[in-house]
């Protein structure tokens, strides 16, 4: 018979749908609600931060891949995703160069220099954020009020301005802004900071009408995105639920308000989007639960007893370091062997 050209490979001879770039794109879609919410709440500041982060992430990726002599991985969408994540961890008043430095560190140091996608130990966006936090703390300690731009216009841009020994908030259109910055919900409940102000209501925190980083505001927008990722099968509820349950338990034991803690700061974005990152979390279901519990515990301890009002990002980074250890000792049961 007329022999056709055929392929020979080992079985299996077909595969399930799905690829890494597809999964990355899905996470980007899932972050669209919170991105739009943050732009609506904080105005042009948020929009510029997101755009600059994405561009800087892409350029950093191209730069380091060229320097290392590897082929470009822009097509896998991971750089864009890291860019969006870094932007979402920044306060809206952060200057543009903070976004550039943060994404550069995230992509070049935390990801590519550690071996590239699949080999990084730490969540790259969080490393970028941690670097910024440690290096430029001052620029990041001013928190804009939600909808501050309505006083002037959407196209108004707020920035930190040095006056004498103080850094205050100013905007392009209004000069120095009075009564615009204040304390985040977490700062308000940190006795050591002695911050003044009224605590937001649960509804305000759920919808996102509070101070905070771009991604720390609307729990609703984040949960919509998380629901999409769960529907697509990219994440499951083990890490988010164990994270939030342990956080709430420790908070309750020390007399705090678990709902307030869950809705404030980076818990929702951290538990659903960052702690669930495939590369830096354990591969077994049991391991994931231990990981989530560790994140919740560390977050609670830092918030309640540590120096910072917010602890999610450090908690996740610390648990990232423990993740390989979890994988080493938490093994699935072998079929046909006795339960040990």
């Amino acid at each position, binding site marked *: 018979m007329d022999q056709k050209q055929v392929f020979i490979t080992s079985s299996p001879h077909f595969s399930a749908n799905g690829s890494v770039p597809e999964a990355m794109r899905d996470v980007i879609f899932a972050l669209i609600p919170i991105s739009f919410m943050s732009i609506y709440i904080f105005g042009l500041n948020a929009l510029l931060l997101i755009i600059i982060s994405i561009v800087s992430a892409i350029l950093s990726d191209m730069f380091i891949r060229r320097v290392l002599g590897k082929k470009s991985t822009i097509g896998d969408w991971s750089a864009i995703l890291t860019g969006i994540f870094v932007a979402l961890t920044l306060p809206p008043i952060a200057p543009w160069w903070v976004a550039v430095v943060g994404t550069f560190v995230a992509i070049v140091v935390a990801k590519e220099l550690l071996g590239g996608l699949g080999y990084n130990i730490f969540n790259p966006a969080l490393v970028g954020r941690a670097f910024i936090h440690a290096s430029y703390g001052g620029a990041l300690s001013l928190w804009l009020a939600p909808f501050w731009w309505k006083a002037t216009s959407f196209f108004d841009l707020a920035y930190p301005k040095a006056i004498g020994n103080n850094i205050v908030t100013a905007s392009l259109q209004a000069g120095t802004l009075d009564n615009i910055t204040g304390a985040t919900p977490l700062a308000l409940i940190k006795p050591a900071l002695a911050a003044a102000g009224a605590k937001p209501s649960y509804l305000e925190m759920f919808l996102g009408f509070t101070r905070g980083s771009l991604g720390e505001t609307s729990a609703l927008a984040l949960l919509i995105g998380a629901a999409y990722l769960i529907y697509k099968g990219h994440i499951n509820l083990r890490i988010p639920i164990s994270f939030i349950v342990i956080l709430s338990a420790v908070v309750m034991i020390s007399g705090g308000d678990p709902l307030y803690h869950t809705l404030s700061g980076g818990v929702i974005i951290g538990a659903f989007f960052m702690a669930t990152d495939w590369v830096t979390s354990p*591969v077994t279901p049991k391991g994931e639960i231990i990981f989530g519990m560790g994140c919740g515990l560390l977050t609670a301890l830092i918030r309640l007893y540590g120096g910072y009002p917010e602890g999610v990002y450090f908690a996740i980074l610390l648990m990232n370091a423990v993740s390989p250890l979890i994988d080493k000792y938490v093994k699935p*049961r072998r079929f046909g062997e006795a339960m040990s």
Partner: protein
Amino acid sequence: MTLKLKTFSPGGVIPPHKKKKTEHRVIEDAVIPKTVVLPLSQHAGAPAKPIVEVGQEVKVGELIAEPSAFISAPIHASVSGKVIAIEPRMTFLGKTMDGIVIEADEEQGELPKINRNVNELTVAQIQQIVRDAGIVGLGGAAFPTNVKLAPPKDTIIDTVIINGCECEPYLTCDHRQMLENADELVGGTKLLLKAVNAKKAYIGIETNKLDAIELMLEKTKNIDNIDVAAVETRYPQGAEKQLIQAILGREVPTGALPSSVGSLVQNVGTTIAIYMACAFGKPLIERVITVSGESIAEPKNLRVRLGTPIEDLINQCGGLKEDVMKVVVGGPMTGFAIYDFSIPVTKGTSGILALSKDEIDVKEQDVCVRCGSCVRGCPMGVEPLFVNARVQLGLIEEAVDLGLLNCCECGICAYVCPSNIPLLQSFRFGKALNAEMQTKKQANSSEKKQKD
């Protein structure tokens, strides 16, 4: 009547069935081929020894090769004709093997029949008939059935499981046999119960074959010791150990056989063949296969004489379409891709799939992103990503510690991997390296013994 839905754990995946093309097609008899090639090894164990010579005339059903060891099986002529060669021929494994080549006569004649009353057969008689008929496991492993029916003296088998799961996509030969040869299946089940002195038999059927479940329920409703067990449609539900776990809740220990937990599993085709051998003296000379896939013109279920070249069957099904990319013998998860279409159908062949580019989804390999899909899918509790990393680095002992040898080669890990990493291929390579290492070690230690 047991109809609670059962399944196995851990692991598993639900691939698309792809059975619509052939699940309603009645089994057709394939055209008798002009030449058959019968490899001497169509079964697990030692190859058979030919007892015919080149030039000899043989009749259909005649014994042409004897078993050469305890774990071996005889081979019978699948057509009447003349032996024109006993020489190495290509097989689906990609290597050549000695086979008996028979040129078929124009006039085929009838297969001789020996009518027996199956109820009067003794256990010893049943085992002898099964061995003499050359019956081996038709689910694919092709293990000599009479050896399975004679476990060691102190092993007690209390349950027989008839495997009607057919969990591989595309394949429908077992499904059709359950529908079209239901009486023979029940007869074979009764013989199995007698042969191993078991108390109960279950016919395990996946829920994507509701018509078969209904029919078997009807056929067994008045038989106390045969029940139908409907199991969840999930791959690899039809794997022996997984099926035993699902139906009986017993786990076969690593390295042990199903008999160690008191059970015997037989494929639907094998069970029917057992009945045909006992009731009519029919040796194993033909089997049912499914020819399917997007790139075959007319998908069919065919009753095929063993030794028929695959190209004959492809032609009978209208030929390959232009967009064919792979031709697979077996199912898509565990089958063998072939390039030489002259190779013959053997006892273990369950299907021929002509797969198009869309079906095999050629993707480039990407880096492992530790997503854990392979860990969640593995039914044996191995962590494929870690075993693969060790094999790629040549750290075979570590790979064995991490479960390399527990791998049952179901293919789920490679199937679910979003980065398209050829995990199963890596494990096969690792197992081969391990076997090499073990042989070297044994050679070294026996050398040492000689020196001392």
